[in-house]
Each structure stands twice: as C-alpha cells, then as structure tokens.
C-alpha cells in the first residue's frame, strides 16, 4: 500500500491511474505519456483533471505547450539511483512554468526526499511505513544550502551577506 503526502500533510489521492489499454474512468486520471499522445483530444476535452506519469527517460519538454493542461505530473524513479527526475522537476518549474502538482513516484529513499523538495516536487507517493514525522525530519536534517534551486531557499552566500 502507498499513501500520499502533499504540501506537508497526508492527502487524499483523487487521481486514478489508468493503464494504457484500459478505458478512461470518470474523474481525475493519470495516464502515461504514450496514452496522452494517443488520446490527447479526448483527454483535453474532459472537464476533470488530467495527470501524466513520465518515465525517467521522458523529458517533460515532450509535453510541449500542453504542459499547462495538466493538473499533475508524476515523475517516476524506476530505481532510486536514477536521478534524472531531479532535473525534470526543476525544468518543469522553471523553463516550462508548471505550477501544478509534481509527484514523486516509484523507488526513492527517505534520504532523497529533501533533494526532491528542493528541486520542485510537492507531492510524494510513499510506502505505508513512511510517516509524516519522517517526512518532516527528512526536510530538516540540513538547515542551510549552498546553491539556489526551485524552492527559492536563501543560500548560505545570501545569509552571509545579510549578516553584514
């Protein structure tokens, strides 16, 4: 079983994942990039939220101008060692100006949550034993950062300058 942590709290997952060959159900759905490309017109015509799940080899730029039609982009970690999604999230938030939910799905570790949070993820599909307490701890282990990222957190250089 998995559960959803979003914006720092447990959240109800209103999206139904849909297999590529299954009919589209009512309500919010998450589809693959291939399914989206195949049923684009039908999906965009619906009045319910649409999410897309990208594999780690799928650059979000492939979504093109459609990106802002999505309520959610789920970025998959096929193995926790595959760190491409860290760049995809940041690209979604900056170059593509995506303001919807970016959800981490797949095989990632507690130890990666803080990095995900920094580059622009705001939702996590976590296993049952992963608690909110753990989530908050993961974000607080390292107080300050050396480099700017999507989270807009002040860098150590800026904090130093402010001390003067």
């Amino acid at each position, binding site marked *: 079983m998995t559960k959803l942590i979003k914006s720092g709290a447990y959240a109800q997952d209103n999206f139904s994942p849909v297999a590529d060959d299954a009919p589209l159900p009512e309500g919010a759905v998450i589809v693959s990039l291939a399914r989206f490309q195949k049923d684009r017109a039908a999906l965009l015509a619906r009045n319910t939220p649409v999410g897309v799940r990208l594999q780690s080899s799928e650059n979000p730029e492939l979504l093109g101008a459609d990106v802002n039609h999505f309520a959610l982009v789920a970025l998959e970690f096929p193995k926790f060692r595959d760190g491409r999604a*860290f*760049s995809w999230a940041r690209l979604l938030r900056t170059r593509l100006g995506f303001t919807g939910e970016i959800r981490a799905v797949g095989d990632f570790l507690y130890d990666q949550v803080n990095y995900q949070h920094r580059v622009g993820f705001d939702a996590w599909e976590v296993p049952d034993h992963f608690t909110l307490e753990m989530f908050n701890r993961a974000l607080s282990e*390292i*107080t300050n950062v050396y480099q700017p990222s999507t989270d807009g957190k002040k860098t150590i250089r800026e904090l130093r300058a402010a001390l003067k």
Partner: protein
Amino acid sequence: MLNTLVKAIAPNMYRYDEFDAQFVGERVNQFAGQVARRLSGELTEDQFKPLRLMNGLYLQLHAYMLRIAVPYGTLSSRQMRKLAHIARTYDKNFGHFTTRTNLQFNWIKLVDVPKILRELADVEMHCIQTSGNCVRNVTSDQFAGATGEEIEDPRPLAEIIRQWSSLHPEFVFLARKFKIAVGATETDRAALQWHDMAVQIVRNQQGRVGYKVMAGGGMGRTPYIAHVMSEFVQREDILAYLEAVLRVYNQDSRRDNIHKQRIKILINTIGPEEMRRRVQREFEELKRMGTLQLPREELDRIAAYFAAPKFETGLSDAMPDAGPDFANWVKTNVHQHKAPGYAIATITLKTPGQVPGDATSEQMEAIADLMDRFSLGEVRVTHEQNLVLPHVKKQDLPAIHAKLKELDFASPNAGLITDIIACPGLDYCDLANARSIPIAQKLAKRFEDLDRQHRIGELKIKISGCINACGHHHAGHIGILGVDKKGVEFYQLVLGGSGAEDASVGTIMGPGFGEHEIGDAVERVVDVYLAERTDGERFLDTYRRIGMEKFKAAAYQGAAAA
C-alpha cells in the same frame, strides 16, 4: 620532541564560518543516522551503498575504506595531525594519499565512522562526496599560490565550486561520478584534460581574466581527452556555465550500461558541437534567471582567505650548498617560487620499496612539524600522490632535506622513473584484477640507482590494477595495466600517454607480460629510449617521434608473451 616545540600555524586557506560548520555538523548527524539504520537492518546494503559512497565509505576486500576530502589538496598542519591521530586510533597507523588528492584509510570499522567524522569536523574536514555518483572532490595545481606562472590563485574558484557542488539537490544521483579540476597556468600539473569537467583560468585578448571550460575527459575503459566547451566564460557566469554542463549530463546521459554513463561517452556520442549547443541553451536560461551569478564581492571575499602570505624580503635568492645528496634533491624536488628567496619543495612519498602515497602517523606528524617550522603551516597533496611544501625559504632547504632523510622521504625522484602512481590494486580493492603495489615497489627498486634515474630524466610510470584506471595508466609515459587471465595476473604496457598540458592517451603495446617479466620489459623499453633519444628529448618526446615499433620489438624479446 619537536612536536611540543612547534606551535601550529594557521595558514592562509579557507576557514569555515558558522554556516560551513553547521552544514558539516548536520551532515555528520545525517550520516550517523544512516549508519544506525544500516546497522539495525532498516536499510539494505543495496540501499545503504549509494548513501555511504556519497560519504566516502567503500566496502573493500577486507574492510571498510574511508576516504577523506582534501579540497584542492590543501592541508593545514592541524589537519595533518588529526589525520595522523585517526590513523593511529581507528586504523593501522597509516593512511594513503590518493590521485584525487584525498587521504584514505583502509581498515575502518563501520561503527567508528560517525566518531571519525566528528573528529574530522573539529578540524574543518569531511568525507562529503569523496565517492559515489556525484561531484567529487575538486582538485587543483599543487603549486597554487606559490608559482609565478599562474594568472591568479585557482583555489578560490575551487572553493566556490566545492560549496556550490556540496549536496547539490539536482546532482547527487548522477549517472556516474563527476570530477572537476581547476588550473591557472599553461603548465598543467592537475591533469585538467583528463577530467569530466575542468576550468582553466585564462586571460583573453583584451586582457580580461575569465575561464576556459573543458568537459568529457576521463580514464576508465574508454579513455578520452576533454573537449573545449567554451574558450572564455566570464567570471560572474562560471557557476551558471558549470551547472549547465551538469544539467545536460544529468538529463541526457545513458543509464542503461554502467560502462557508458560518464560524460565523456555522452559528448563523444552526440559530438562536442551538439554538446556545446545543449549547454549553451541551459546556460542562457540560467544566466537569465540570475540566481547563480557570482558577484565580484563573493569571489573577492573567498579569495581573501587565500591571500598571499607576507613573504620575508631581503632573503638571499641563492641556493645553499649542502652536499651532493642535497643538490640532487634540489634538482628534481625543488621548484621556482614567485617570491625571491623562497622555493616550492616536493616530498615524494615514493622512496623505492615503499607503497606509493602511504604515510604512517609518525611521518604525518613529522611532516606537520616541517609545515609549521618551514612552510607557514601548509602542505599540498598532489595527484601524483606526493606532498608539497609550498612556501619554504631557500635557506631552510638543507634543514628540511635533512629531516626528510630521517623520515625516509628524501628521495630525489620527483618526476623521475621511480615516482610511480599506483592504485591500491588487488591488495585492497575488490574491483581489481591484479596487484599494483608490488609491481610499483619492484620497479622502483629496479631503477633505484640515482645516477641512472637522473640520466633517464622525466619519465612517468602509472600503474592500474584494472581497466577502471585509478592508477592513470592511460596518462603514463609508460602505463601498466593489470589484467587477469584465467586466474593469473598479467601486465600490459601502454606507451605515450600524458597527463600534462600536452595530454594524450597512451597506446597499448600488445599482449601482457607475466608478473616476473614486466620489470624486464620496462627496462628494455627504457633502453630503447636511451639509445634512440636525441639531445633534450624526454621519453615521451622520443616515443612520439619514433612510434611504438622499436619499443615493441625490444619489449617482447625473450619474453613469453601471453
């Protein structure tokens, strides 16, 4: 005891402020938590592995190995004494200086690691990113701040890169490791072109100082020399440019074959032109966003830590006369310093017969004393696994030499045939196919005769115990690669590589030699050089002029090649 007489001197190098100290402290606690989760079984070894590697902890053949970062090779005497203490307390009383200018301990217990990290944090040291698929320890020229050849000291930029790359959220799970070096001279002592990414501080035609950026160099099973990404990046743009290169790498590198995941493979697959185009696109976007722009004040602030020490004036610039041993040592191990009356002295950790790069606790402490007495409290680690006293008075050189003799570190062999780089090899490493250390030891013994070494002149031998090339065999004038054939160790010869400004990839001669034949083979290769060389030619020059053939013919004479 000298120890008690000498007061530790704080050299002009980067010092942690409260933010750095807090960062490293929290990182230690974080890793202590990861170790606890591993020990309790919450983390599997598979999950723990990338986490421990990111903190320099390897599982080797016999025990854990802990690799401590020595940023751009600069150490204070206080840090050196701490390393000696750790070697004595937690390891077998010695440490090993590596080709990444780090120091590693080979016999560490997992439960001790958090304690060791706290001890290191006390002297502003850490193990962050000394291994794993992330940005590794930034290296530089061991003569930085001491040589008159440089445009400016490269260490401030190296420190800025160190900070920017520390736990960079986007780049801690890269496809493979990523090594960065910074240099500031035409003479390349940092093997820039062999790096995943390198920055050379340059001056453009208008006289402005900026940065030449190269990428895609690397050793391993497919060696490549780096391509130039940009001839001139403006100072304030450098972090944006480096981030752009890394971002393209993180996005576009293969992830399906561990042997094809370094940036060198990406660049040589898509071509340097296409790579530059992709980097340029990212760079322009990052520059527009502006958050990574490096203000002049920040560069100046970091540079102030590395300000040139106050050198005494009015010193004699003449080299003292202290006998033939001393004169020999000066010839190879002493280099020109920018200040009159001063010199740069190399301590080769390569006394024939010793393990290249190893030092005992007592030797480290004695060197710390030399640092305090004679070199403003500072030493540099070189990628050739030696140490350098960067700021010594010429008048003190005889006393330094005499002390080094006592330590058995006075070999006048810097850059000579016995100044050999060797990886740990099968004696320690579970990736190795063959032993490297005994081969290095035997070769050094074979060529121990000093007159002969000096007659041969500059000749760099580099030995790797497997194709991963940690011993830089591709860049050796003579490289040696250990291979395993049906359980027997063989050694291939590789000729004509260079890790200097004239970087080149060596060429494999042919089938390997047995453990007992490789020494003779090297000797015959050297004899060909001595017979063929013209005035002033180094081994490398002769090889480049006459090619492989004569060397090959001689090397296999009488050898049962396998």
